[in-house]
């Protein structure tokens, strides 16, 4: 195989996303250790890097077999968001392939080729960036291969290359026609075109069409392989006894009984706990219960949830870091006759993906091999390298499907490190470290709890006049390897969506305060937006009421200069028959929010029953995410975002009692079940803008939409999550 240095389009240097790239570089400290050469987007494939099948390689993202299978390398983690369909679509489109000849493989950990273009030299998945950062890159990769096939055909048939057509997997010119397979041996050795020509969007055959998912077949017959499912010769299962609280340490450990338990191979201490390594899960699980460990919990949190909320309220009553100041909110409020005040409380949440976290590791002398769903392979390589004394590039990661993540797998110093700590004490043996559900909830990294204090007013003629907002929460990144991403004095996730709100409020002041709590937090699907959108959208309805205006009409005025916001707002309102009468006992609420570049509006229809319980019966959703690469995957992500957002809005909370998390499993931490899932309708705003993400943006509006429907019905402001099931 002849692999050439095939450089393709990189990120637009003028893009605002370049900023997050720099932040990420700084944050992760990934300077050059992992980089080969200078460019972070070298698409060279080293000769030893052939992934699963040995087919002629066109570039880092694309192989074609002699029997016409097109194999696409997926550089992002598939956690259900549809990357194995969306990313393959981009290549298939430009290549001119048939959808049924497209297959995929997960790319190995290698930031020199598979970095997230928005994150600099870091490979990883998050921020709803998979399609957005790959949009030019993968289309270019597909177009380059198409031109190489055309060139090979032109040479073979002795015709001008420009006249060679490729469509539906067939290369043709006049009387000549051929499938890809017979041409790939030659085509793949040709020099890659420097500037392959991308298709005119009007010629798209696949992008924008409803085409079937690539992962449906193996996820419906039990053959899809997740980390839990890895079986290797001689593999052992490890379970870790963790302290009952974060920052706890083992003081005295008696392993005798556990060691003597049937099937146990070893008991090893690791920095965060004590691991039992056994022949199988059940043996490890039984033996773990036999460990006698005395924990030192002196460094742990001692407060309960009500004390923590009280501390947050106290912080919110003082002045915080002012992160946005337009006009003079204080003065405007002082002059207003009627000031609306609201104090919000939002709880900790757990990711609670159905697949508990797990990781398979085998440490050998000069290599460490891992099998798991890695959300940030570059970080995982660095951290495991540190633990094992290997170079990051000696850490080989075989990427697998993730049984959900919602942000949880994008973390540092966590389960991956624990697994490596165990495996390095048992070199040469594959170790599968698994967490039970209880381990997962206990060692969760929660969506931060938050308190928001708001004051607002409308002018006598019913226009929004002033908005003063103070958000208090724990920083997700401070004190972690991601700390470098914090710009300025405040972790932006605390105020995101608020300080950059799109409502034209003439006097707007946003303050934020970080509050230290000894609980581990992390990005949870849509990060700060997950709670902040609820606050903003329910407060807007309070202002609308004060202005005696319809919530949609009030928003339209404030979004007059935001055409994309208006687009989703109007579409959702129209499709939900906003303003038309509803059945008795049913009310409507609307919310609109932008996150990760994507606009979403949702209308919730809520029925309040005679016994004061309520059900969310129907949600109408409008989304503008630029070009809709796969409308059905977009709809699925909106449905899922709505379901998960509703789950949190109605019934999820992690609470602490004397510093100890009170929830342990799905009976006390209670995600939404099918009987609470509303009917969902998704409408996509047609757009020619570059695509933005959909994995997260469907989530933020729903809590506000439901809260506003309840407010419309009862007149009582809704300021606390979860809402429960009663008004």
């Amino acid at each position: 195989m002849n692999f050439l240095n095939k450089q393709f389009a990189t990120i637009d240097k003028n893009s605002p996303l370049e900023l997050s790239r720099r932040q990420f570089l700084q944050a992760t400290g990934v300077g050059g250790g992992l980089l080969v050469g200078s460019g972070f987007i070298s698409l060279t494939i080293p000769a030893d890097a052939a992934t699963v099948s040995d087919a002629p390689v066109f570039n880092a993202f694309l192989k074609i077999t002699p029997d016409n299978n097109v194999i696409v390398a997926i550089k992002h983690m598939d956690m259900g968001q549809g990357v194995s369909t969306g990313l393959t679509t981009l290549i298939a489109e430009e290549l001119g392939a048939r959808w049924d000849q497209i297959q995929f493989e997960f790319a190995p950990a290698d930031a020199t080729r598979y970095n997230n273009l928005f994150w600099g030299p870091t490979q990883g998945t998050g921020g709803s960036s998979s399609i957005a950062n790959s949009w030019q890159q993968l289309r270019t990769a597909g177009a380059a291969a198409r031109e190489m096939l055309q060139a090979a055909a032109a040479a073979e048939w002795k015709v001008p290359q420009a006249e060679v057509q490729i469509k539906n997997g067939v290369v043709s010119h006049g009387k000549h026609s051929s499938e890809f397979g017979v041409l790939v041996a030659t085509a793949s050795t040709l020099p890659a075109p420097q500037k392959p020509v991308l298709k005119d969007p009007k010629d798209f055959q696949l992008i924008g069409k409803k085409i079937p998912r690539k992962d449906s077949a193996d996820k419906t017959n039990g053959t899809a392989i997740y980390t839990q499912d890895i079986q290797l010769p001689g593999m052992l299962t490890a379970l870790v006894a963790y302290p009952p609280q974060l920052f706890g340490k083992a003081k005295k450990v008696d392993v005798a009984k556990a060691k003597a338990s049937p099937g146990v191979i070893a008991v090893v201490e690791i920095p965060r706990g004590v691991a039992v390594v056994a022949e199988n899960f059940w043996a490890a699980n039984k033996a773990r219960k036999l460990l006698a460990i005395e924990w030192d919990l002196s460094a742990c949190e001692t407060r309960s949830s009500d004390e923590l909320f009280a501390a947050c309220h106290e912080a919110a009553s003082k002045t915080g870091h002012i992160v946005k100041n337009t006009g003079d909110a204080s003065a405007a409020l002082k002059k207003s006759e009627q000031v609306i005040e609201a104090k919000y409380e939002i709880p900790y949440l757990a990711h609670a993906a159905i697949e508990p976290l797990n990781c398979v590791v085998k440490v050998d002398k000069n290599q460490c091999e891992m099998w798991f769903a890695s959300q940030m392979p570059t970080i995982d390589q660095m951290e495991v390298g540190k633990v094992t004394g290997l170079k990051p590039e000696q850490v080989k990661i075989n990427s697998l499907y993730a049984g959900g993540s919602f942000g949880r797998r994008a973390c540092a110093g966590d389960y991956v490190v624990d697994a490596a700590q165990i495996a390095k004490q048992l070199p040469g043996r594959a170790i599968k470290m698994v967490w039970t559900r209880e381990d997962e909830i206990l060692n969760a990294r929660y969506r931060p709890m938050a308190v928001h204090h708001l004051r607002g007013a409308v002018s006598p003629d019913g226009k929004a006049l002033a908005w003063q907002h103070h958000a208090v929460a724990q920083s997700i990144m401070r004190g972690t390897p991601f700390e470098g991403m914090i710009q300025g004095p405040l972790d932006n996730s605390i105020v995101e969506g608020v300080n950059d709100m799109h409502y034209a409020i003439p006097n707007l002041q946003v303050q934020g305060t970080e509050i230290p709590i000894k609980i581990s937090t992390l990005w949870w699907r849509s990060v700060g937006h997950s709670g902040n959108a609820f606050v903003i959208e329910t407060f807007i309805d309070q202002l609308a009421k004060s202005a005696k205006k319809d919530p949609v009409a009030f928003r339209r005025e404030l979004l007059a200069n935001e055409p994309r916001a208006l687009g989703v707002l109007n579409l959702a309102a129209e499709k939900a028959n906003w303003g038309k009468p509803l059945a008795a006992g049913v009310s409507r609420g609307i919310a609109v929010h932008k996150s990760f570049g994507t606009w979403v509006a949702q209308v919730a229809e809520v029925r309040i029953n005679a016994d004061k319980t309520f059900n969310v019966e129907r949600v109408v959703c409008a989304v503008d995410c630029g070009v809709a690469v796969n409308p059905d995957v977009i709809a699925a992500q909106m449905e899922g975002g709505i379901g998960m957002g509703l789950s949190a809005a109605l019934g999820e909370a992690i609470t602490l009692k004397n510093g100890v998390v009170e929830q342990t499993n799905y009976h006390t931490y209670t995600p939404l079940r099918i009987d609470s899932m509303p009917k969902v309708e998704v409408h996509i705003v047609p757009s020619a803008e570059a695509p933005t993400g959909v994995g997260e943006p469907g989530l933020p509006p729903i809590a506000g939409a439901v809260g506003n429907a309840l407010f419309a019905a009862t007149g009582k402001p809704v300021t606390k999550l979860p809402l429960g099931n009663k008004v």
Partner: protein
Amino acid sequence: MISLTINGKKQELDIDPDTPLLWVLRDELHMTGTKLGCGMALCGACTVHMDGTPVRSCSIPVSAVANANIQTIEGMNSVAFQAVQKAWRDLDVVQCGYCQSGQIMSATALLQTNKKPTDEQIDAAMSGNLCRCATYHRIRNAIHQAADAIGKTASTVGGKA
């Protein structure tokens, strides 16, 4: 020695009798289509059929199923299962997919006893199966579609679910 019948095949296993069926399937027999989610009969990821009835394999000791006929997703081929699987694929129900073996096992069991379930009956039968990706909306639609498909086959060829 415990003898088991899994997907129609008799198996003799030398195993701790209190091992949950789930771990026999996964660790001993390497049949990994059946998943661990909670280990407490709360999520349904581990659903298998025991003499045709959906059960949570994480919470049944293997000693309790010695005389039963266990079906896992790997061995399913009934008319109802095929209709369910096809509907799941037609509607692209899956997201992360991790819960879906369990969902499909529960849905198949429902359609084996109720040919034309209503939304309420679907919700009741499926409410033991969590999906954190919240694919519920499509699950409901897919079960209706599978029921319709079975109905059509039955009326044309007189088949049985």
